[in-house]
């Protein structure tokens, strides 16, 4: 029996390994890298009759037009502000729920609860929009028929009134994401050395002190990673949340339009390929720069927490 494989069979084995990767790499090339090469579309006036390569170059005109519209301000504000608000809510409530789940003495109940809390994240956004409709529908919705009359309030045409939408979208977002976020922090909390809590208890530390002095510092790496990942998506929004839940209603556009709904509407509805491509490229480039900056800062402060 040979002690080690001879060189020829190692070479042959590696060749097989490379061949195994071919289908997957081809897919990544087509699906991810070809569109990256296609970012030049944002600098052209696309004419499908000529094809994308022969269409006329227009420099930064698409961007100029885009940022001259009032839409540019609306979608930038909405995308960024919603993301920041969502992130703060999700982090604070996610950690709070995770701590409670970890501290519960009845761990069977805790496990049941965490499963129940992730259920909304597993259903499609279309179903979510049906559920939202059951609450918000003007004629048959539960809010207008049961809840508002109970408090003696007048019915509201929810899909036409701007005011409530920041709250509605935040509630739906939390409903969808609280479970997943809590599980991520929970898995980091259960990794904390139990001896820390035991000695703190002997020293007479209260629950609150244990949370602020042990739990939070120990899960800091997870918090930093989560925040870092979020900076990269600051200019992205959950398309389904902003397109389906408000049912693309024009009357509430000012408070529900984001980059992703804008790109969809410009590309598919108003056939404005140039502006859609400009908005999409702006989103990609800013997201990429943000994640690079955030990673650099993190690496300076605490090298272990950087992503790459």
């Amino acid at each position, binding site marked *: 029996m*040979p002690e080690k*494989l001879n060189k020829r069979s*190692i070479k*042959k*084995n590696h060749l*097989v*390994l490379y061949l*195994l*990767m071919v*289908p*997957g790499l081809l897919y*990544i090339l087509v*699906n*991810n890298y070809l*569109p*990256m090469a*296609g*970012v030049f*579309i944002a600098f052209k006036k696309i004419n499908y009759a000529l094809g994308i390569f022969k269409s006329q170059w227009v420099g930064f005109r698409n961007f100029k037009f885009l940022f001259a519209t009032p839409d540019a301000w609306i979608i930038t504000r909405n995308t960024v502000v919603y993301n920041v608000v969502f992130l703060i809510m999700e982090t604070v409530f996610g950690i709070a*729920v995770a701590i*409670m789940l970890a*501290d*519960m*003495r*009845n761990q069977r*109940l*805790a496990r049941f*609860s965490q*499963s*129940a*809390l992730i*259920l*909304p994240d*597993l*259903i*499609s*956004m*279309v179903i979510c929009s*049906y559920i939202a409709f*059951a609450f918000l*529908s003007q004629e*048959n919705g*539960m809010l207008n*028929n*049961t809840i508002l009359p109970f408090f003696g309030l007048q019915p509201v045409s929810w899909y036409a009134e701007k005011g409530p939408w920041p709250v509605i979208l935040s509630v739906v977002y939390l409903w969808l994401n*609280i*479970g*997943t976020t809590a599980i991520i*922090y929970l898995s980091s909390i259960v990794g904390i050395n139990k001896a820390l809590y035991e000695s703190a208890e002997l020293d007479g530390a209260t*629950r609150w002190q244990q949370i602020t002095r042990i739990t939070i510092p120990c899960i800091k790496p997870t918090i930093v990673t989560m925040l870092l990942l979020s900076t990269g998506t600051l200019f992205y929004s959950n398309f389904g949340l902003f397109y389906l839940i408000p*049912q693309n209603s024009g009357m509430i556009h000012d408070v529900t339009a984001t980059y992703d709904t804008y*790109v*969809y509407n410009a590309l*598919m509805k108003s056939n404005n390929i140039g502006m859609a*491509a400009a908005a*999409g*490229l702006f*989103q*990609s480039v800013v997201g990429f720069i943000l*994640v690079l900056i955030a990673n650099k800062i993190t690496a300076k402060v605490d090298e272990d927490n950087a992503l790459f």
Partner: protein
Amino acid sequence: MITKQERRYQHGITATIMILVVLTLSPFVLLLMSSISSESSLIRNGYQFWPQTFSLDAYKYILRNSDTILKAYGLTIATTAVGTLMSLFLTITLAYPLSRKSLKGRNVITFLIFFTMLFHGGVVPSYILWARYLRIKNTFWALVLPNLLINPFHLILMKNYFEHSIPNEIMEAAELDGAGPVGILSYVVLPMGKPIIATVAMFTILTYWNDWTNALYFVSDSKLWSLQILLQNILNNVQFLSKNSQVTSQIGMSVTNIPSVSVRMAIAVLGVLPILILFPFFQKYIVKGISLGAVKE
């Protein structure tokens, strides 16, 4: 010894979590109850947790007009099956070579895959590529191929699992026994990687079952409407359902006597039912998968 304070704390957190669970699950109850309410009680009182009168008319109506919905169901099942199998094949055949430390260039390739999570070409180039150049509009493949086949995040999770949770000695021993890469993949990696493969498979099944964006972008032909996009179009056309016969005939429902208020919710229940039924079985994989993602490699 449980102190009085600790007991109060336990009561407090248990009550808070239970309230959260009830709040989280109650919308599902509302959806279900709405679908089994009688049309008249819905029109009088709207959607309620406990309707005045129950009725299965919505489901009976769907059964009578089941063609469209059954077709959409079948299409979604086919998409999910084909998509998940192809996705697993591509992900495993990419993750396994990348997990072999001796393979030259694996770090570069891993980085190129990781990079796709940081920078995207955007919706427009991707749409033009698939729709205009690869011509998948209004074909079955429009529901399967764009964007969903390889999730780089799942790929990296799987690669890390193969690399760190399967002992290298076992692979080397198999190699010495004359097994090639394909042999090792089928006799060592697949059986020992079952936990991660099952987890990724669950997420992929959910992705395909729930996807509506591919159909939104690439399918206009109502024959190729998956369950989710059918549901989306029905909700979109709610206002027209009773007025516009063209829309209703497109959706395949007769205009007369639609218990429209409850039927919508009944179709939504049918759309989410498979997930609710399977949930107890796959929730443990999902929870594990989410926790895995939290651990940085």
